[in-house]
């Protein structure tokens, strides 16, 4: 070997494989404004569609008159429910087993509901047309408060369900009831409460909010009448699912539907489901024979396409005097709005809410969820969340703090006392999950040491004393949160969408010169898949990440995948990528053995190729094997070097983390100051630490927004009062706190590379940390639970109610 021979470290570094802080390759185009989004697409003759929307939350539609609209220059068509009925598309199925109006059919059920679709030669003409459509409404009484939806005399919202005593998820007990979902052992849990030494009970609400990605929902539909083919470019987090849905409801053969998700500007769950805009644009294209673009504006996005949360959780915990939890009982009132348009796996109407036992060893638990209809926008999507895990984490993390307060125990100490112990994994929870791995005590203790938890508590005691002496008007709160997530949906034994198992997929093709392309069934919306997927392959097969092109989002070329949401990409698609790469490597080993004239078993892997055991100079690099795959494979072997893997995960993965928020609140104004936020995440094997850090920063910023002010709020008449970024709290860099990140690594035992997923953890764990900090700050003045969001005026109101100004 001479001096020019690269060292092992240099060869390793050249790969930029797993564990490397590789810079995001997609940012080269994003930072230069060269991304390719749906609204960048301009096809010849393309038309534009836009909606006439309802000003009322509940009203009968007496008539729709399009006469004047059709006179507006450029307006070509006005589509209504009557038009859609001719193609049997006035209603569409939702992913939750409900049906939803595409356009108002006889009545409207929420403000800004889609009433008519105006198609015009440009966007201006379409909007001019909208203003000329005359709709006659007869207002009806509204149901806004979820707690009044099931009153005996509550107005009937869903007339289409009249007489239907059961829905997709079992019996309905009221005309505004969607489903009841229960899990756990009720008798055992009731017994635990009957003999409990200490109990808490609190109604904990997680208010309605919205994923609000910067790019709204949009599509371009183009129907080719000659070929009978429909092409759809859209902001789809799950393009293959959209293709199948279109095939099922539009009766177009699936091979003649081309769904393409180009670059997407954030999804956060908002872009999983199907919306009326997609159907209307497709129908408009079929009718006119021209491409039709539909682009939602911000107000439409916030008020019509899929909200998140709106879970009202009556939470009870039973415990011993010493603080050992003995039972958990939760009843949830789930407000789904006008239609149940959750995007949960089919059998899970309340998502994975049964992760609500959290990180704690509850011997028994019982959960009942009642879904209800109200006159609000439909949905209940998983906003940066693996299907109601955010709600569950908030419920249990607030609950544990409330219990600690009741016991007079420190909330961190209470958690340490009740954690599932490392030796209990795999752990079977009282509500049916098998937690794959975890080391909660280590993570919690690392967090407490890193921030000097004991010191912070001392400082808080001093601050409280000073407040009581009248020396300061600031109070101080510590918000501890220790969450366990359940992500990576999911194993075919319990997860499907429309009957399709929730596997994911990867196809790798290596080219003769040692570069290759990987096509994956997931779809990045900013997560950085083009960067991280190549890193997995680089480590697995020893080809530099820079030489692997990652492609997603085109249903004609990508293998069938279930898309990206619920932190499922790394647990499921990431596993498929590793498995496909291992198939490549296995074939490569056979080729190398043939070329090196040894037995396969005599070869060992060495960073970027194979070498003969005991003969380190006798090697064949993966790059050379790629070349050989196209000219000199062993006799009987097919040439080429390609592999496909469809991965059905054996279990979910269970990322966890320990967060703490240190906050001061000025009681005179309610203004809060986030002094410190420390987030320790354990997502198992870390593929790209820089991207993980970015994900954590983004998710924490969303958590901060949700806990401290972001909400979709309705007035008593059903008008949305937070329908723009003026009032829907979207923090800028100025308001966003500084984030400290940290980690432990507990690899998943069943995942090929031990990775667990991280994208949603900070949103899941962050919200309770902020809320617990506010609650902790006020607790010494006598409060037990304060509902979110904790914006300035509500903090002031709390202070006032606690007698601070007396």
């Amino acid at each position, binding site marked *: 070997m001479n001096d020019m021979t690269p060292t092992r470290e240099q060869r390793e570094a050249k790969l930029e494989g797993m564990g490397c802080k590789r810079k995001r390759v997609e940012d080269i185009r994003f930072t230069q404004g060269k991304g390719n989004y749906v609204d960048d697409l301009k096809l010849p003759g393309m038309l534009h569609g836009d909606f006439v929307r309802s000003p009322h939350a509940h009203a009968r539609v007496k008539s729709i008159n399009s006469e004047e609209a059709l006179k507006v220059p450029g307006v070509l068509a006005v589509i209504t429910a009557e038009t859609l009925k001719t193609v049997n598309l006035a209603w569409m199925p939702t992913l939750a087993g409900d049906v939803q109006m595409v356009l108002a059919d006889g009545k409207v059920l929420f403000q800004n509901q889609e009433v008519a679709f105006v198609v015009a030669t440009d966007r*201006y003409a379409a909007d001019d047309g909208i203003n000329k459509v005359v709709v006659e409404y007869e207002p009806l009484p509204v149901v806004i408060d979820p707690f009044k939806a099931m009153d005996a005399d509550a107005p009937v919202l869903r007339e289409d369900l009249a007489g239907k005593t059961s829905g997709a998820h079992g019996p309905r007990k009221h005309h505004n009831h969607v489903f009841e979902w229960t899990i756990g052992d009720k008798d055992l849990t009731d017994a635990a409460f009957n003999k409990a030494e200490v109990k808490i009970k609190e109604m904990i609400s997680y208010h309605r909010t919205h994923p609000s990605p910067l790019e709204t929902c949009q599509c371009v539909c183009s129907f080719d009448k000659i070929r009978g083919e429909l092409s759809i470019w859209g902001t789809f987090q799950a393009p293959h699912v959209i293709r199948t849905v279109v095939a099922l409801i539009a009766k177009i053969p699936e091979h003649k539907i081309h769904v393409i998700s180009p670059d997407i500007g954030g999804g956060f769950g908002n872009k999983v489901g199907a919306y009326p805009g997609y159907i209307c644009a497709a129908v408009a294209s079929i009718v006119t024979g021209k491409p039709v673009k539909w682009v939602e504006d*911000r107000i439409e996005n916030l008020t019509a396409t899929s909200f998140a949360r709106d879970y009202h959780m009556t939470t009870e915990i039973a415990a011993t005097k010493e603080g050992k939890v003995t039972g958990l009982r939760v009843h949830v009132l789930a407000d789904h709005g006008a239609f149940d348009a959750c995007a949960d796996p089919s059998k899970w109407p309340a998502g994975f809410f049964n992760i609500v036992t959290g990180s704690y060893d509850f011997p028994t638990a019982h959960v009942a969820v009642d879904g209800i209809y109200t006159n609000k926008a439909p949905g209940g999507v998983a906003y940066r969340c693996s299907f109601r895990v955010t709600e569950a984490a908030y419920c249990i993390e607030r609950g544990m703090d409330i219990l600690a307060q009741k016991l007079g125990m420190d909330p961190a100490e209470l958690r340490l006392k009740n954690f599932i112990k490392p030796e209990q994994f795999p752990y079977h929870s009282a509500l049916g999950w098998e937690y794959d791995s975890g080391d909660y005590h280590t993570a919690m203790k690392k967090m407490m040491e890193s921030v000097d938890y004991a010191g912070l508590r001392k400082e808080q005691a001093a601050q409280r004393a000073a407040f009581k002496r009248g020396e300061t008007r600031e109070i101080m709160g510590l918000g501890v949160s220790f969450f366990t997530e359940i992500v990576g949906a999911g194993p075919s034994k319990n997860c499907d969408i429309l009957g399709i198992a929730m596997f994911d997929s990867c196809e790798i093709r290596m080219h003769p010169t040692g570069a290759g392309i990987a096509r994956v069934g997931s779809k990045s919306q900013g997560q950085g898949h083009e960067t991280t997927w190549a890193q997995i392959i680089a480590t697995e097969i020893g080809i530099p990440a820079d030489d692997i092109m990652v492609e997603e989002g085109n249903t004609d070329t990508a293998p069938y995948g279930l898309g990206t949401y619920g932190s499922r990409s790394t647990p499921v698609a990431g596993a498929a990528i590793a498995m496909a790469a291992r198939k490549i490597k296995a074939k490569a080993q056979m080729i190398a053995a043939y070329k090196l004239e040894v037995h396969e078993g005599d070869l060992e892997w060495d960073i970027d190729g194979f070498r003969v055991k005991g003969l380190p100079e006798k090697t064949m690099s993966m790059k050379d094997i790629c070349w050989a795959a196209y000219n000199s494979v062993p006799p009987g072997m097919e040439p080429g070097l390609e592999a496909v893997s469809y991965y059905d995960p054996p279990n979910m993965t269970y990322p966890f983390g320990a967060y703490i928020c240190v906050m001061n609140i000025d009681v005179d104004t309610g203004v809060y100051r986030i002094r410190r936020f420390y987030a320790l995440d354990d997502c198992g094997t870390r593929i790209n630490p820089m991207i993980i850090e970015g994900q954590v920063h983004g998710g924490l910023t969303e958590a901060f927004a949700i806990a401290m002010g972001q909400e979709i709020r309705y007035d008593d008449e059903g008008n949305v009062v*937070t329908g723009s970024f*003026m009032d829907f709290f979207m923090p800028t860099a100025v*308001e966003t706190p500084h984030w400290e990140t940290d980690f432990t690594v507990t690899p998943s035992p069943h995942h090929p590379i031990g990775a667990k997923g991280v994208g949603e953890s900070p949103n899941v764990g962050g919200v309770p940390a902020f809320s617990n900090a506010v609650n902790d700050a006020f607790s010494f003045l006598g409060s037990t639970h304060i509902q979110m969001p904790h914006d*300035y*005026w509500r903090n*002031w109101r709390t202070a006032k109610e606690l007698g601070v100004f007396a």
Partner: protein
Amino acid sequence: MIPGPFSYHRPASVADAVKLLSKLGDEARPLAGGHSLVPMMKLRLATPEHLVDLHGIAGLKGIRRDGNKIVIGAMTTQHELLASDVIKTSLPILHETALLIADPQVRYRGTLGGNVANGDPGNDMPALMLVLGAVYRLEGPGGGRDIAASEFYQGAYFTALEPGEILTSISIPAVAAAHGYAYEKLKRKVGDYATAAAAVVLTMAGGKVATCAIGLTNLHETPLLATDAANAVIGTSLDAATLKKAAAAAVAIMSPAADARGPVEYRKHVGGIMVTRALQRAAARAS
């Protein structure tokens, strides 16, 4: 979020602008920075048939001293106010306030004239104009006239501007070199209007307040001059009891609307706190 059709005009002189606005009548709106008007047009809450863009008129921009006054052209942007040494040294409260208006992108485009002439109770500059005793120069079909800022505001979006009139400049009398000032603004985030804000300009003599003016933003349908509150502090050393009295006097004239920033009671409460804090900070700055 798509505006209706309109015609666009770009006159080159004040006379032409006035002529156009008079001729086109109610269906025409002058366009300055556009940060209030254009969003309203995109929501079709405003549907003017004609926009008369004032950007083509030379002479509507700039900051100059005129004897004992500082004259600011109506089309001077917030960014230009921030970049001006004259403002920084002679009217530092304008500098402090401009920094609290939205973000740099908005400040590059938004103008002082648009801010004060629109009559939006949420705008920050009108309260300052009251406190500083500013005079607005208006040009209209009948010629020019001067009007005190204190006479200008009549209601939310209603001002003393007559049809065809435009604001061309703002004159602000010099403030004593040793004055103290503060603009206290409580807002939910960058870009938001004030939940409550108070502007204070005062002078001190022998440890006591000699002169004082207090202005209030977004606590009524027009900006307010809190005269009773200001009188309550003159001759005092701003002791706790006086501050409480002044805040109460200011709160007494507030009538904000309830909105997502909070209920009426909260907005008045924090309005009083903004007055207290602005007084304390201004006094600390006075020499």
